[in-house]
C-alpha cells in the first residue's frame, strides 16, 4: 500500500507542475524566465566571447563585424559639409548610396542595410541613381548586399521587388519568438543567418568561425531553434580614437568580481559602449575623402572583408533593442550581436526554448516529483497515513518539517543540476528554473494542506 501512496504523491506533484506550466498564470513563468535570463546573461556578459583573444588567436568575431551608424550628428555633419543632399531624416536614396557604395569601395564582404524601404518616395527622385550606384559599386567589389525585407509574409511592393531582384531582401521582422532571434521563419532566413552563411559557410570563411553549421543543419534550417542572444560587455575599441570624445572603460576582472553579486539582485549598471565595432557614417565619408594615408589604411582594415550592418540611430525612429548590460541600443546592434554569436559559437549557439526543451522540462519535473515524493514518503508520509492519531504530536510535526526541508534542499540541487545541464550541455537559454523552485516551494504547501485536511477530517 505504501508504494501506491508514493506513486500517488509523485503523480500529484507532477500534475500540479504540469498544470502550472501549461496555464502559466499571469505569464509569471515567462516573466520569471526573462528576469533570470537577463540576470544570468548580464553576469556572464564580461566573459563573452568564451574564447578570450590570446597570443595564439589574437582576434575574435568582434573584429569581423562592423556596424555603420547614421546618427543625428552624422546627418548634420555630412549635410553641413555638402556631402549629402538631405539635412534631416529620411535622407535621400542617393545619400544612402553615397555611404553604402563607399563600404563596397573598401571591399566589404557583405552589407546588410537595416533600413526598411517600402515604397518609392514621391518626394525623392534619386531612386534610380541609388540602384545604379549600388550596382556599379557591387560589380566592382563583389560585395553581397541585402536590404531589410520585413516579415515572412510581407506583401512586397514594386520597390521592394526591385530591391529584391537587384540585390536581395532578408527577414528583419518576426513574431512569436519572444525575445529570441529566429534563424529561419518558415524557411526564410533572417538577416544574421544570411550574413553568417556568407561569413562562415563559404570557401574563404573567417578564421574566427567556430563549430560551423553542417550543410544538413542549413538544409533543415526550418527546425533550427531561435537564438537566445548572448551580449558581450567588453566594448570594441574605437576605430578612430582621435575622433572620439569619450572613451570606454576597458574590462577589469577586479571590478567584474566586485559587481557580480549585485548584478543578480539589483539593477545592472549599464555599459555605455556597445560590444560591436561602430563606424559613424560621417567618419566613413570624411576619412575616405579627407583622411591621411594612415587613416585611410585603418579605414580599409576596418571594412575590407568584414560583415557590415548599416543602420540608423535617430530619436523618434523606435528601432531600438534593450540589452541586459547596455540598456537601450540601436536595433541594428541586435543583428550584429546575433551574427557575432553565430560566428563565435557556430552550431553551439545558445538556443531559445523550443518544443524539445519543453518536453525535457516535463521529464525533468516528473523525475524531480518522484524524488520529492520519495523524500516525503521515507521521512514523513509512510508513518503519517499509518498513524493519523499522532498528527499533532511533536514528533510528527518535527518529521513533517524535516521532510519538507529536505524536499527544498534536494529539489534545489536537482533544479541547479537541470539548469546547468540544459544551459551548458544542451545550450538552451536559462528556463523554467524559477517555475521549478516555485513548485518545490508548493510541495511544502501541499503537504501542509494535506496535514491540515487530515486533521480536520480526523483521518
Amino acid at each position, binding site marked *: 500500500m505504501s508504494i501506491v501512496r508514493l506513486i500517488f504523491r509523485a503523480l500529484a506533484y507532477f500534475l500540479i507542475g504540469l498544470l502550472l506550466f501549461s496555464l502559466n498564470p499571469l505569464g509569471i513563468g515567462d516573466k520569471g524566465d526573462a528576469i533570470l535570463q537577463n540576470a544570468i546573461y548580464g553576469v556572464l556578459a564580461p566573459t563573452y566571447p568564451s574564447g578570450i583573444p590570446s597570443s595564439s588567436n589574437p582576434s575574435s568575431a568582434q573584429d569581423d563585424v562592423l556596424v555603420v551608424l547614421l546618427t543625428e550628428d552624422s546627418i548634420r*555633419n555630412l549635410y553641413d559639409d555638402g556631402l549629402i543632399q538631405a539635412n534631416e531624416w529620411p535622407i535621400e536614396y542617393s545619400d544612402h548610396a553615397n555611404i553604402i557604395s563607399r563600404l563596397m569601395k573598401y571591399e566589404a564582404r557583405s552589407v546588410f542595410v537595416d533600413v526598411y524601404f517600402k515604397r518609392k518616395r514621391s*518626394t525623392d527622385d534619386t531612386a534610380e541613381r541609388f540602384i545604379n550606384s549600388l550596382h*556599379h559599386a557591387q560589380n566592382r567589389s563583389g560585395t553581397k548586399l541585402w536590404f531589410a525585407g520585413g516579415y515572412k509574409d510581407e506583401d512586397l511592393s514594386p520597390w521592394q521587388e526591385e530591391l529584391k531582384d537587384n540585390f536581395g531582401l532578408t527577414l528583419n521582422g518576426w513574431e512569436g519568438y519572444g525575445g529570441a532571434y529566429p534563424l529561419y521563419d518558415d524557411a526564410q532566413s533572417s538577416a544574421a543567418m544570411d550574413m553568417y552563411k556568407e561569413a562562415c559557410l563559404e570557401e574563404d570563411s573567417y578564421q574566427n568561425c567556430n563549430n560551423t553549421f553542417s550543410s544538413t543543419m542549413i538544409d533543415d534550417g526550418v527546425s533550427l531553434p531561435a537564438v537566445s542572444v548572448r551580449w558581450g560587455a567588453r566594448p570594441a575599441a574605437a576605430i578612430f580614437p582621435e575622433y*572620439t570624445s569619450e572613451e570606454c572603460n576597458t574590462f577589469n576582472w577586479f571590478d567584474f568580481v566586485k559587481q557580480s553579486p549585485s548584478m543578480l539582485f539589483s539593477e545592472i549598471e549599464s555599459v555605455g559602449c556597445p560590444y560591436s565595432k561602430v563606424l559613424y557614417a560621417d567618419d566613413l565619408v570624411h576619412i575616405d*575623402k579627407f583622411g591621411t594615408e594612415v587613416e585611410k589604411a585603418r579605414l580599409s582594415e576596418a571594412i575590407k572583408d568584414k560583415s557590415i550592418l548599416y543602420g540608423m540611430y535617430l*530619436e523618434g525612429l523606435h528601432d*531600438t533593442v534593450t540589452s541586459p548590460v547596455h540598456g537601450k541600443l540601436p536595433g541594428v546592434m541586435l543583428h550584429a550581436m546575433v551574427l557575432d554569436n553565430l560566428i563565435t559559437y557556430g552550431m553551439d549557439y545558445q538556443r531559445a526554448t523550443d518544443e524539445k526543451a519543453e518536453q525535457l522540462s516535463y521529464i525533468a519535473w516528473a523525475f524531480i516529483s518522484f524524488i520529492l515524493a520519495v523524500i516525503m514518503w521515507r521521512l514523513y508520509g509512510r508513518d503519517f497515513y499509518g498513524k493519523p492519531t499522532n498528527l499533532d504530536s511533536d514528533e510528527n510535526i518535527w518529521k513533517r518539517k524535516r521532510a519538507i526541508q529536505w524536499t527544498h534542499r534536494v529539489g534545489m540541487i536537482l533544479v541547479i543540476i537541470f539548469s546547468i545541464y540544459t544551459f551548458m550541455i544542451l545550450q538552451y537559454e536559462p528556463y523554467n528554473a524559477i517555475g521549478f523552485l516555485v513548485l518545490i516551494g508548493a510541495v511544502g504547501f501541499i503537504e501542509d494542506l494535506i496535514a491540515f485536511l487530515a486533521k480536520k477530517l480526523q483521518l
Partner: protein
Amino acid sequence: MKRYILILLSAVMAFTGQSNLFAAEAGNKSINIVAFDDTEVELKIDDKYQYIEVSELGELPIAVVEENKDHWLKITTTLGESTWVARSSVKTDEEPPIKNCHSIKISQAADRGQSGVRGAGEKCK
C-alpha cells in the same frame, strides 16, 4: 588715362595674388577639383547620369565653373555641353571641413522613449 589706371591696378592685383578678390566677394571664389574619391565617378552629362573613368576627364586640377544648391559642381569637359559632378564624389582645393568628434557611449536608459514618430523633415517637398 582711365584705361591705364585700370591696367595698372590689375597688374598690381595679379602680382600680389589678389586677382580673385572681386570674385570671392561676389560668392564666386574659384574652386578646383584636385582629386576624385574613386577611379570612376558619376557624372550628370546633359541631364543623364553615367559613370566615367576619371582619367577621361583630363589633367587635375579641374576648374569648377559653377555650383548649384544641391552641391553639384559644373565642370567643362568634352563629354557634353553640360557636365556636373557631385561634391560628395570629389575633393576640392578648399580647406577641408573640420572633423567633428563622436562619443562611442551610445547606450541609453532602458526606459527612455517618446510616444511620437519622427517627421518627414524639412527637405521633403
